[in-house]
């Protein structure tokens, strides 16, 4: 489960065409900004430099020129994830993300999608704990028009009561669909127990009763409160050189946004260590899930270090956990360790899939591997391996305008203004000793919450 990307608008994964979607299975873009070349070599083509502007009301604009890309990505970001909800607003951030596509005063429901897709583009959105973003991929000649449509849609949603009632059904179906996946139920329970008293412990999709009680006026108030000049940003990536997009924005809905009455505070995440067992119907294989807290996204240095550690531990056959538990002891079908980059504290989430009778051994061995990590610094060779995997993952993710825009947009939204080379430099600052002293200890099993899910 990718907490940051939870609850996308629309399950339209089946992209089409001459070729089927399923023939392309690239590694997903790395969530983390990070990447260097590890040894001195001929210089690759330089990474594009972000061009930064600001509207008169302070909204940051970032442009990245990728002359070789066939499409432009326009990506609007706002600090209005589920962590911005009050208790009675459970699920509102995500429900609003759905309602945005139901049109504005100028755009009837469905008109936005029809026009973007008729221009050869596509759009989507995703709501996370911290933020929400709406993005469009579009041929460069239609980018200006798409930008105008996108901002109108996102900033002036109509929130029609009939549409609201209909879309609530869709959101409830989305909730039911996720509840039919026992693995998702187990992850949700892990977060609930590991992050009590915090928004990260609550479902982005919301509680069913809360969703049933929501009404359009409350949603409009949520929108007014959070979609503000000092809580938004806009990123544009792709072949931009002939487009003068910033000048188009001077009179746009974005330029008319007022600032909020003060910055929203981020509640730091406290993770409660502990352990539980959960019986789940319809589960075929048992799961060991574990969660740890690492420093939040603002500490970019630690985020890069965390990426190195999780890669060293669980990325590839020669990583410590995969090698020990899957290749040698053969206790698991798979074992994954993901770093979820979040503002209030990053979450490292482990998932091991195994036969129920192996669960105890799996937990013992995972803890053993982590104790070994705590006991001494990693070897130079395995650190170098992790550095190159993380570095190339980042480099590969820079190929497509969509992932570049998302990375840069998320950073800009939270006031982080590094260029694309910077993560490569950070990656070089970590050596085995510093990882050992500053980060490895945070993955102590005693600091984790672990959940064993077994078939009922």
């Amino acid at each position, binding site marked *: 489960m990718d907490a940051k990307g939870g609850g996308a608008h629309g399950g339209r994964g089946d992209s089409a065409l001459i070729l089927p979607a399923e023939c392309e299975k*690239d590694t997903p873009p790395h969530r983390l900004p990070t990447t260097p070349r590890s040894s001195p070599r001929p210089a690759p083509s330089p990474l594009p430099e972000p061009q930064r502007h600001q509207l008169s009301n302070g909204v940051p604009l970032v442009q990245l020129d990728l002359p070789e890309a066939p499409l432009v990505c326009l990506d609007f970001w706002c600090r209005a994830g589920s962590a911005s909800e009050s208790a009675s607003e459970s699920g509102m951030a995500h429900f609003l993300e759905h309602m945005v596509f139901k049109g504005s005063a100028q755009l009837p429901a469905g008109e936005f999608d029809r026009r973007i897709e*008729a221009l050869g*583009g596509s759009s989507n959105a995703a709501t996370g704990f911290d933020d929400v973003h709406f993005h469009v991929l579009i041929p460069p000649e239609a980018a200006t028009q798409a930008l105008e449509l996108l901002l109108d849609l996102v900033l002036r949603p109509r929130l029609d009561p009939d549409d609201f009632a209909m879309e609530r059904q869709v959101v*409830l179906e989305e909730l039911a669909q996720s509840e039919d996946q026992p693995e998702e139920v187990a992850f949700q329970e892990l977060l609930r127990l590991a992050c009590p008293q915090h928004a990260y412990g609550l479902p982005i999709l919301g509680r069913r009763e809360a969703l049933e009680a929501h009404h359009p006026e409350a949603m409009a108030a949520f929108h007014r409160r959070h979609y503000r000049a000092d809580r938004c940003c806009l990123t544009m990536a792709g072949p931009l050189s002939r487009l003068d997009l910033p000048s188009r924005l001077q009179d746009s809905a974005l330029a008319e946004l007022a600032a909020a009455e003060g910055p929203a505070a981020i509640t730091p995440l406290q993770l409660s260590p502990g352990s539980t067992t959960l019986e789940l119907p319809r589960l075929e294989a048992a799961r060991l899930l574990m969660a740890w807290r690492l420093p939040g996204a603002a500490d970019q240095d630690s985020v890069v270090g965390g990426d190195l550690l999780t890669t060293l531990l669980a990325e590839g056959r020669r990583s410590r956990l995969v090698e020990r538990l899957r290749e040698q002891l053969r206790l698991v*079908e798979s074992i994954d360790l993901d770093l979820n980059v979040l503002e209030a504290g990053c979450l490292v989430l482990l998932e091991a899939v195994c036969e129920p009778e192996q669960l105890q051994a799996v937990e013992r061995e995972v803890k053993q591997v982590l104790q070994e990590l705590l006991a001494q610094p990693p070897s130079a060779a395995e650190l170098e391996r992790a550095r190159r995997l993380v570095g190339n993952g980042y480099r590969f993710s820079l190929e497509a305008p969509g992932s570049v825009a998302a990375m840069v947009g998320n950073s800009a939204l939270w006031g982080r203004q590094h260029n694309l080379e910077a993560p490569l430099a950070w990656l070089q600052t970590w050596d085995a000793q510093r990882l050992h002293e500053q980060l490895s200890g945070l993955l102590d099993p005693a600091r984790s919450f672990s959940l064993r899910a077994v078939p009922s």
Partner: protein
Amino acid sequence: MSSQLEQRQLAGGCPLWLLHRNGPAILSAKLWLRGGSSADPIGQRGAAQLLAGLLSRGCGELSGEALADLVEGSGAGLRCEAGEDGTLLSLKCASDDAPQLLPLLLQMVQSPWLVDDQIALERQLNLQTLQRQREDPFQVCHDLLRRQLYGEGPYGHDPLGVEAELEQLGRPQLQQLAGNLGRDGSVLVLAGAIPDDVEALLLAGVETGHWPAEAPLRRAGPDGAGNAGLCSAEDDTEQLVLMLGCTTTALGSPQALALRLLHCHLGVGMSSRLFVTLREEHGLAYDVGVHHPARLGAAPFVFHLSSSSERAGEATAELLQEWQRLLEEPLTQAELALALAKFRGQEALGRQTCSQLADRLALVLGHGLPADFADQCLEQAAQLTPADLQQAAQALLQRPSLSLCGPAEALQAAERVWNRNPLSH
């Protein structure tokens, strides 16, 4: 786009296509070998995937561990997977690392180790994955429909295999299969920043200096079983999963392009017909769409939807009505224009990265189609009329089957609607 396509041939006969690209110093290589899970021998379903997984577990002079050290130590990605029509080896790396990594491709194909210990591990992992997949009601519904549409035929099973047969697979069967890898058609595509001495690098690990292989020829692929009807699985879920579909036609066949435009019309993007009617107008589902992969043989064409079990009857009726509508009503000119725009847009979306470009080219060439097939399709699609699309629907989509997975009362409600519907007779 500043890319340039070049065709060469490797010693031994395998076509080599090079797509030179400016931009980041990245290289993507795709080696397509015809004969995926549809070529699994009788009684050995799962063999192609098991073999694919083993290719990276030791080859030539490298043990599985040494190979993993080399690949992961370069920060590269390597994947070997069997699909229905072929086995695909994918390598993605920084182009500076190409000299040490490119020789692996043919080495894996020509001299895999296939040691018993690694076979046992890979087989166990595949068996566990098959078991875990049953947690997912979409997978259960999809497996049922595949069984209904393709029966015991070559497309009738998951590429991972059939448990009872996979359990019996061992070194003798795999060695036999490995000896024939590529003989039935193969093609190698490289995209990105390509080194100058690429052929020498590719053949560096091959002792004889050549690899006997042939270009994939155009030929007919597997058919459906000719069955139509209802299949269902009871499961204690909140939602009912519905899949309505039939077997159709091969990539590149006369009506395939018309069908692809119907796919765009019905299932691509949020302006698509199924999305708008079933989700936006009726609120029946979150996830709704069309599954229609490219195949060498009779590709499936499937509507899919999941809806609360208390709305099972309504969801079934609406889904059937959309299918019926395809047969009875031609698209309007506006609908056709939108479908065409989406077709072009999806093409652009799928040409963004080196891997995407190499992947699409390998698939087209692997099917024995020309390298400019996609561009030809873009031109031909503009000539199609609403009548062409309707004729394709009437020729290919007459008798769909319905697959259901969900709680008993939802199954009953859906079955009642199905039994009354003309499409079920």
